[in-house]
């Protein structure tokens, strides 16, 4: 029997701060409707939101691709933008190139990528300077994570 896989695509617009969160809210709605455990839904929503926010803050535009299979959930956020020169550095908590405008909104403290890492089981970032970035997140419904 063929494995059932569900897929969705959502567009994210750079600099559209008012709607930054809308796509992740849709992801959350889908997972809730499918009956996933609330803690799992929350973890996915937080990781998705930080990735969405990074497109809005740092890139021109992007697409969030959500795939759900019986074993795992995958979110790939691909953007067209400046890319990340040093991914290891970008992953460090506190590293940020965010503008004051972004800081005034309560983001830009360099916690986004670390927050994503904390909430997913597998994170892979690929980037080409001048072209864009791909953030690939795998989250398994069964894994239990501690608060802190």
């Amino acid at each position, binding site marked *: 029997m063929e494995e059932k896989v569900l897929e969705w695509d959502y567009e994210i617009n750079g600099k559209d701060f008012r709607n930054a*969160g809308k796509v992740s*809210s849709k992801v959350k709605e889908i997972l809730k409707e499918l009956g996933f455990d*609330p803690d799992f839904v*929350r973890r996915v929503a937080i990781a998705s939101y930080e990735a969405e926010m990074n497109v809005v803050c740092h890139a021109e535009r992007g697409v969030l691709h959500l795939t759900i299979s019986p074993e795992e959930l995958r979110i790939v956020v691909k953007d067209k933008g400046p890319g990340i020169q040093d991914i290891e550095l970008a992953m460090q908590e506190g590293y940020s190139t965010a503008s004051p405008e972004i800081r005034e909104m309560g983001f830009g403290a360099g916690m986004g990528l670390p927050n994503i890492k904390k909430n997913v089981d597998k994170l892979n970032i690929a980037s080409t300077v001048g072209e864009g970035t791909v953030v690939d997140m795998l989250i398994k419904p069964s894994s239990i994570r501690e608060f802190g």
Partner: protein
Amino acid sequence: MQLWEIQGILEAELLWEPVDLQMEIEMARAADLMSDVLNRSQGGELLITGLVNSQVIWTAELAELKAIAFVRGKRPDQETIGLAKSKDIPLLATKLLMYEACVRLGMRGLPGSLGTIW
């Protein structure tokens, strides 16, 4: 603690109605840094903040915070209030400063995200 008690303690105004004033709130989280809220919160909290942009609403929606109290007499614009309403997140506005708001709620026994007051 129920929402109507929080409203009274903070001498706050409700920014959209009708809301469920009997909503049970077990914890609070005070922050102006939304990434920090996303990093360290349990879900279910009242968010006490001095920021009034739409990202505060999206943060509450995605981190599953129950309600928001804006301090220092600040208020979001109508579109942001509308967003909160569409997500069913009650909004309170108080003239108290952040510290005063926190102390008042803490003295009445509302714990923080770690489940403690001290």
